[in-house]
Each structure stands twice: as C-alpha cells, then as structure tokens.
C-alpha cells in the first residue's frame, strides 16, 4: 500500500525566462485587480520557481516532452490589435446554431465587441474574469485558486502567476443557467503565450453547461496554458466541454480541476483535435458522498501531432461513481497518450469506478501509450478498467462493402461510429452535429491524403 500520492517533479531549477517575464508582467499588470490577487500570483510564481518545468524523465511527462514547452516564450501576449473577422468563421458552432452566452478572448484578453451575454436571472454571473475581479472581488476570492492546485503543477502555477483574464460563471443555489456558456479562445499572435483562467461555481442544486473552445488565427505557433476550476455544490450539475482545435503548430496545455460536493455531477468532455502538442490534465475530486463524475473524451492525431490526456478521478468520499470513456483515433506518425488514474481513498467505500480507453490506429507509424493507474486504499469498491489499441474490424469493412458502400466510405462510417460513441455523450446537440460533421470531413481527407485536421481559414483576414 502506498502512503503518499505525489504528482510533483523533483525540483529542477526554473529557467530564468518565466521569472523575468513575471517581473515585467508585475510592472505592467501587477497593480491591477485586488490586493489578494497579487498575493495569489506571487504564490503562483514562487511555486513555479520551486517546481520548474517538469523534467523529461518525470513519470507524468514521459511522453510529452516538456522541454518543447519550456523553450517557448512565457510572457503573456499584450492586448492584440488584430481585427478578428468574427466568431462565426472561427467557431465550430456558428451563432445561429447555438443560443449561448458567448465570451470571446483573443490571446487571453477579453474581446467585448465579439461577446454577448444573454439575459440572466438575479445573482447569476457570466462575465470575464478581469471584470469580476474588479466588481465582485470578494466573491471571486472565495473560489479562485481553490480547485486548481498550483502548488503541485508547474503549468497551473504559471497560469496563476500570470492570471489576468478569463471567464467567471457563478450560479446561486437552485438556479439553472438556461443557455450554455460558450467561451472562445482565439490565439492570434505567434510566439506568445496566453494563460486564460476559467472559474465555474455552481452552488447547491444549480446547473450549467460550459463550452470552452480553443482556436488559432492563421498557421503560426501559439502557446496556450489554460486552467479551469469548477466547484460543484451539493446536488449541482456542471457539464463542461473542452474543444481544442488550435492549428497544427501550436502548443497547448489545458488543466481542468473540479471539486465536487454532496450528490453533485460533473460531466467533463475533452475533444482534442488540434495543436502539435496538446497536454490535458483533467481531475475530478469527490469531496463528499454521492458524487458522480463523467470523464469523456475523444482525441485525434495526424502528421506529427502528440495528444496527451492525464486524468484523475479522485474518490475521497463514499458512494461516488466515476465513469470514464476516452477514444483515440491516430493516423500518420501521431502519438496518443492516455493515463487514467483512479484514486480510491480509505474512506471512499462503495466506490464505483469504470474506465475505458479505446484507440484506433489508422497507420502503421501511429502509436499510443495507454496506462490505467488504479490506487485503491478502500476495500469495498468496484473498479474496472480496460484499454484497447487496434485497427478497424476488417469483417465489418467487408460487410459494408458487400452492400455497395465504397471502401473509403465504409471506413469513415466505422471510424465515425467509434468517435460518435464519445461525441454522443455531449449534451449540446448543435455541438454534437458539428463535431460529427468535422470528423467526417477530417477522415475523408485523412484516409485520402494524411495530414493534420484542417482548420478553416477565416474569410477576409489580412495578415
């Protein structure tokens, strides 16, 4: 029996880059926002200073070469002056198809003219974080930094150090947010990093859907280091969708940390199709009995893409359920990593934890590393896990062909069906339809001429 759970790297001296960048950032932005925020940021940078970028031999970063991330710029992007042609051309779900509160961020900065918040009920808040820090500082203070453990994660620490903007969704007890919140993060300038922070608080019995979508303008490399914190109060339900569709040159680190209280439900979906290197850390913590967590995900890779999911379902209380389903589709020389941890603490009797990770390899050179990690300290629990890596069922391909369906289409149908299993769990219909469609388009190209998932070019853009 293990007695400690550590997620930290042996301390490695932090490169000077981020620390210097932090000094400059402090000069520029340090005075903005409430005093407690400054303290939070300082603790973020000092933890980062201790942690450093994870070493390449670190168990958690074995496949996702952290040096690639460490070599990048650390300074947050200044407010951009590019003209964004409009959300419609960047988002997977055009305006007309999804009635949602829409907040758009460009290189981490809120873009009010592209954003729109629908009418809200009293005490409900859907706003950008910078504004919330100004006008609802004490409300934000009681939740910010409570779920994301910046003491143990270098990237969360870095995000905290450079915390400036992002989104704040707050739901008072018993209210449902009628429309989903759609957050669109646009990366527009090469060589800069953005550290968006999202904070979702659903008090007792409240319900919300939050979609985060990450896209790029143009083809140059950006670096996104996003952190989302979710607090789900007793009986609350939060459905969270993460759509990572950045261009094939980008680096993306995304962290989602949720804390759940009695009888709450959190549904986390991660769809990751973009970026050259994408690393996702998704953690659900069941703090009180009766919680349910769904970890659902779909990742695709082509060319030289690397897509890495590290998930944790942390059962800290009895009678909680976690259901995890991750599907990967990898082509070209792409690599997929899935590391699914299930912790069942000593008190977490009657835990029901399921995990499956299935992977389809569309080429001989694509690889996947899949690793379930169950650490169980309680004795009365039900835990199952399974992982598969394989090719398409050729009997099924032949069956479809024997009915007149062409080979390429037969393969697309079967792969699409494989992906739809995960897409189908997303509770936002407009999104499901678009995801299925995009996937089919990707497969059509991938099976014909392999390459990364195409990113539609926004029209009328001059750079």
């Amino acid at each position, binding site marked *: 029996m293990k007695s400690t759970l550590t997620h930290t790297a042996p301390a490695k001296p932090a490169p000077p880059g981020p620390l210097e960048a932090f000094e400059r950032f402090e000069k520029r932005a340090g005075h903005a926002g409430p005093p407690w925020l400054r303290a939070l940021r300082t603790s973020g940078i000092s933890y980062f200073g201790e942690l450093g970028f994870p070493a390449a031999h670190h168990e958690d970063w074995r496949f996702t070469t952290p040096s690639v991330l460490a070599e990048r710029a650390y300074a947050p992007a200044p407010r951009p002056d590019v003209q964004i042609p409009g959300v419609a051309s960047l988002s997977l779900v055009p305006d007309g198809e999804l009635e949602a509160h829409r907040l758009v961020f460009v290189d981490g900065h809120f873009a009010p003219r592209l954003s729109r918040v629908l009418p809200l009920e009293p005490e409900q808040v859907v706003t950008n974080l910078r504004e919330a820090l100004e006008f609802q500082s004490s409300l934000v203070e009681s939740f910010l930094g409570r779920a994301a453990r910046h003491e143990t994660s270098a990237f969360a620490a870095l995000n905290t150090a450079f915390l400036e903007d992002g989104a704040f969704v707050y739901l008072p007890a018993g209210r449902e947010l009628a429309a989903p919140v759609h957050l669109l993060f646009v990366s527009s300038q090469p060589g800069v990093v953005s550290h968006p922070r999202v904070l979702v608080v659903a008090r007792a019995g409240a319900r919300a859907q939050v979609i985060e979508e990450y896209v790029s303008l143009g083809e140059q490399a950006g670096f996104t280091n996003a952190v989302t914190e979710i607090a789900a109060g007793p009986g609350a339900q939060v459905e969270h969708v993460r759509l990572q569709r950045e261009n094939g040159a980008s680096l993306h680190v995304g962290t989602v940390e949720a804390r759940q209280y009695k009888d709450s439900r959190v549904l986390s979906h991660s769809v990751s199709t973009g970026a050259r290197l994408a690393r996702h850390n998704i953690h659900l913590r069941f703090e009180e009995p009766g919680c349910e967590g769904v970890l659902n995900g779909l990742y695709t890779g082509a060319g030289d893409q690397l897509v890495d999911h590290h998930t944790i379902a942390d059962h800290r209380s009895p009678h909680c359920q976690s259901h995890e389903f991750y599907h990967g589709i990898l082509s070209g020389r792409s690599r997929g990593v899935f590391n699914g941890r299930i912790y069942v603490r000593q008190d977490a009797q009657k835990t029901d934890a399921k995990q499956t990770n299935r992977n389809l390899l569309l080429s001989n050179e694509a690889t996947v590393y899949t690793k379930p990690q169950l650490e169980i300290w309680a004795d009365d629990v039900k835990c199952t896990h399974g992982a598969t890596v394989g090719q398409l069922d050729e009997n099924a391909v032949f069956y479809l*062909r*024997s009915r007149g369906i062409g*080979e390429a289409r037969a393969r697309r149908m079967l792969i699409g069906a494989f992906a739809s299993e995960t897409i189908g769990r997303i509770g936002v219909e407009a999104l499901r339809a678009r995801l299925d469609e995009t996937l089919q388009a990707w497969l059509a190209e991938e099976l014909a001429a392999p390459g990364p998932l195409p990113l539609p070019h926004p029209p009328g853009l001059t750079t």
Partner: protein
Amino acid sequence: MTPLLEINQLNATVEGRQILKGLSLTVHAGEVHAIMGPNGSGKSTLASILSGRPGYEVTGGSAALDGEDLLGMKPEDRARKGLFLAFQYPVEIPGVNSTYFLKAALNEVRKARGLPELDALEFLEFIKAKMKVLELDPSLLNRPVNEGFSGGEKKRNEIFQMAILEPRLAILDETDSGLDIDALRIVAEGVNRLRKPDNAQVVITHYQRLLDYIVPDYVHVLHDGRIVKSGGKELAYELERRGYDWLTSEARPVSPELTTA
C-alpha cells in the same frame, strides 16, 4: 443467352490451403439453385470468393456475372452490379445505425443503376412495405446494424437487406440456420416474393426443409471443393434420406486432387 452467373473450373486457396478444386456452376436468370454439402466442403468459401471477401486467392478458373469478370472487381462494385450475399454469420457493426446504413447502401446501388437517390422520407416509405413482408420489428432499425440482434433477427435482417437492394443474383448462405419454424416460413416467403424472371437465387443449405419453401430448379452437391452431383429438387430428398456418403465415396476415385495432402 448469357448466363447470369458462370463459374468455370474455379480453384482457390485460403492461407495456402486449397479449398476450391475446379468448381463449375452455371446459373441463368429466373432460376433457383440449391447447394448442399457436408461441413467444410467449401460452400461459404465459394460465397465469399464470389462476393470478394479479402483473404482468398483464386489460383485458377473464372467467374462472371452477366458475362463480366467478377473476380477482378471490388466487393462494392459487385454489389452495385447486383450481387448479394446473405451471410452465414452476419457481422455486428457497433455504432452504425441500421437505417443510415441501409439508406447509404440503397443509394449506392441506385446510383450504379442510374436511378435517382432517395431522400430520407422516400427511403422510409420505400422500406415500410418490405419490413411488413418480413415481419421485422421496426425498432431494430433504430439500433446499430446487427448489434445485439438475436441469431434469427440477424438472418431475417439479411433477407430484409436483400429485399431493399433487389439484387440480380442473391446467394443465401445457410439463411435457414437459427430460424424458428415460423420465421423460416416468413423469410422463405420473403425470398420467393423477390423472385423475378430477370434474377436468380443460389441457396446454400443443409436441410431439405428449406427447399419445401424455396423450391429449387436445381440441386448441387458440393464436396471437397467441387460439385460432385447435380439434379432436380428430388436430389435434396435423396440426400436427406441417404446422407452424403454414397456420393463422396463415389466421387473420391474420380478426383485426383484428393490425393494432395
């Protein structure tokens, strides 16, 4: 008249093992042929090779549909040209909705025949009648293809697909196995209704009983990779009575291939 199907001296191997050893068979439009034969004699292999399943190597002979070489064609092109195989073991296709699949298949076949594609509404209208004939539970259509279907439902679903695609040449591989007595009658009636002067059916079965419903014009016995006896429908009765022994021992001396290991 060009035969609908003409197989001439077909030889084929699977994983280096010779299974078909000079098989010949001619089927004309309007005919129903039954193929019987002991387990492992090569009946399903023949069906697989005709429908283009990968993994078989044709080492000699020919097969033509409407005078056109079949063996060089992709499986989907054979289907579009009117070949249909009702599988002995239909495949489950998880996640692919039955209605979606059927519509895709039908429209591919229609396109190949120069017919306009059907839209969703027209398609539903089109299949309604076919479903009735086969007394198919409509809820099956909302499920993934064959997934979790009972053995009998899968077989019935094969004939339902045949009814939709209206093939010129249908090969039914042990469609009767796994069907209960009522289902057998329903499926057989479905098959009979699809019989037209310009199409043909090849029915593979172990049991004479099916042939009471689907009455064949010819019965062939396949043994060790070739047809060792052909006759009218009365041959099936004889086989039922006497088994295959009398044929196989009779056939053995005249088949030199049998001496190969």
